[in-house]
């Protein structure tokens, strides 16, 4: 292995009775990488994460965490991991500091470093102000952050977060995303979600899982490069002669939406957009909007997931 792989999971399988929840999934995670696990509900994301963190044993397959086999040597492998399950594993009758102290001791942090680690985790998750309050009295967003603090308190090499932004308000979501991005600088992060913009905001690489199988895997850089044409929504005050517009070579596809608005698929680069604007001006169409549509991940996701469903 040339570059340091912190997680190597090969050929993971997991059955629940006859239901094949995870089917031959491979996961590799490099140092300093944020991997987004994406998939519809019930795709097997949580099961995969439970296997990676030792909560579930895989039916077959192999999991190496920093080159330590999770099945042969669970204690040492788990020391390298921080995990936030879907439901934050917090004791509601403890204060934030008490809880984090307990987690820190469970993670074998030496006594002399306890206060330092707790303070660092509190500060990174902006929990310092509420550190003396009972977790049960905190809002869902704060409880979620306590869950994240618990996952990073021992400064693990790999942080695994299962739907970390569920149930948070938009400001909190922004903060958590920012935190995940920060974590990605030092730690490697695996993040599961079904919120597409989240992946675009924080991940380096994305792996889409559907019905227990990996159906797509790519880096976000490559996704944005691989797109040769762009989608735009264009709107006018009055109806226009669509045939005229359609005749332009740069327009590869065009469909009508309501209220004199059209969906255009444009070939070429940004320059083509100004060409269209100029063309509209020339014909004295009263152009009121041109909105770029982010294609990329959403269309990839919908294509993969829906095509599969229709076929099935």
């Amino acid at each position: 292995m040339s570059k340091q792989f912190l997680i190597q999971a090969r050929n993971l399988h997991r059955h629940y009775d006859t239901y094949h929840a995870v089917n031959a999934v491979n996961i590799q995670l490099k140092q300093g990488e944020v991997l987004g696990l994406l998939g519809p509900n019930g795709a097997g994301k949580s099961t995969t994460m439970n296997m990676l963190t030792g909560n579930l044993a895989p039916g077959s397959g192999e999991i190496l965490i920093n080159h330590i086999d999770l099945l042969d040597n669970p204690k040492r492998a788990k020391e390298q991991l921080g995990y936030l399950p879907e439901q934050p594993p917090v004791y509601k009758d403890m204060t934030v500091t008490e809880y984090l102290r307990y987690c820190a001791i469970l993670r074998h942090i030496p006594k002399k470093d306890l206060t330092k680690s707790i303070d660092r985790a509190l500060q990174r998750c902006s929990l310092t102000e509420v550190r003396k309050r009972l977790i049960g009295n905190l809002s869902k967003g704060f409880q979620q952050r306590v869950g994240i603090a618990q996952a990073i308190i021992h400064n693990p090499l790999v942080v695994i977060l299962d739907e970390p932004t569920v149930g948070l308000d938009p400001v909190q979501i922004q903060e958590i995303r920012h935190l995940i991005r920060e974590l990605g600088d030092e730690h490697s992060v695996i993040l599961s979600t079904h919120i597409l913009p989240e992946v675009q905001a924080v991940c380096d690489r994305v792996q889409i899982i559907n019905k227990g199988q990996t159906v797509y895997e790519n880096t976000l850089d490559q996704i944005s490069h691989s797109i040769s044409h762009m989608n735009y929504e264009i709107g006018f005050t009055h109806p226009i002669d669509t045939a005229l517009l359609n005749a332009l070579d740069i327009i590869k596809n065009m469909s009508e939406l309501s209220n004199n608005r059209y969906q255009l698929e444009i070939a070429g680069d940004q320059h083509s957009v100004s060409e269209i604007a100029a063309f509209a001006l020339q014909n004295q169409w009263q152009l009121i909007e041109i909105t770029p549509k982010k294609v990329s991940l959403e269309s990839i996701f919908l294509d993969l997931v829906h095509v599969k469903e229709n076929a099935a």
Partner: protein
Amino acid sequence: MSSLFTVATTEFKRMFFSPLAWSILAILQFVLALMFLVLVQDFITLIQPQTAGIENPPGVTDTIVSALFLWAGIIMLAVMPILTMRSIAEERSNGTFSLLRSAPISMTEIVLGKFFGLMMFVFIMIGLVSLMPLSLSLGTSLDWGKFLAAILGLSLLLASFAAAGIFISSLTNQPIIAAISSFGLLLVLVVLYISGKSETTGSELFVYLSHFGHFLPFLEGIFQSGDLAYYLLFICGFLILTIRKLDNERL
């Protein structure tokens, strides 16, 4: 080892973070104190005058300590399931169990930690109950051997309750079901004793199987290694079953 200790102390402390442990201790102490009062009253007004002429009459330790400890055991039959339902079933339903499972700590350490955490509570409870007969030593002399045997017997009995309760707790993720089933299991063992002692259906085997059957000799001050072995086997058996159950759950 240190993780085991951490789990045990946290388990113990967490009981006192909520009003649960405080209210259980208070109510137990109140009920048993009333009991104690009745027993002392009976001893002074009834038993002492009646046995005045007999050679080697039953003393305070026989009449008061063993009755009090028997009652403590009976009440804990209902209380222990409430404590053990928290240990695994409630952690599962709150989603906190995965914290322990993804921590670098073995299932054995988790289960033993939970058990010893409960035992710390049990010792506090026994300590508080023992204070009452101990106060008698101000005015009369106690039979220390019998008293200590009763304490040991009650500790073993409650440890066996705890082990069985933790096992039932590991079978379900609904605390209430865990509590009711543990209570049922403990009660069945008592019924075994009662039916074993009954004149029509009497059976040595039933008495032998019941945990109460091995508790009563301790109250009479009889320490038999067979009784001790019964409790140790009972406790280890249920704890090992719990560990196996939780380990298998990952598969």
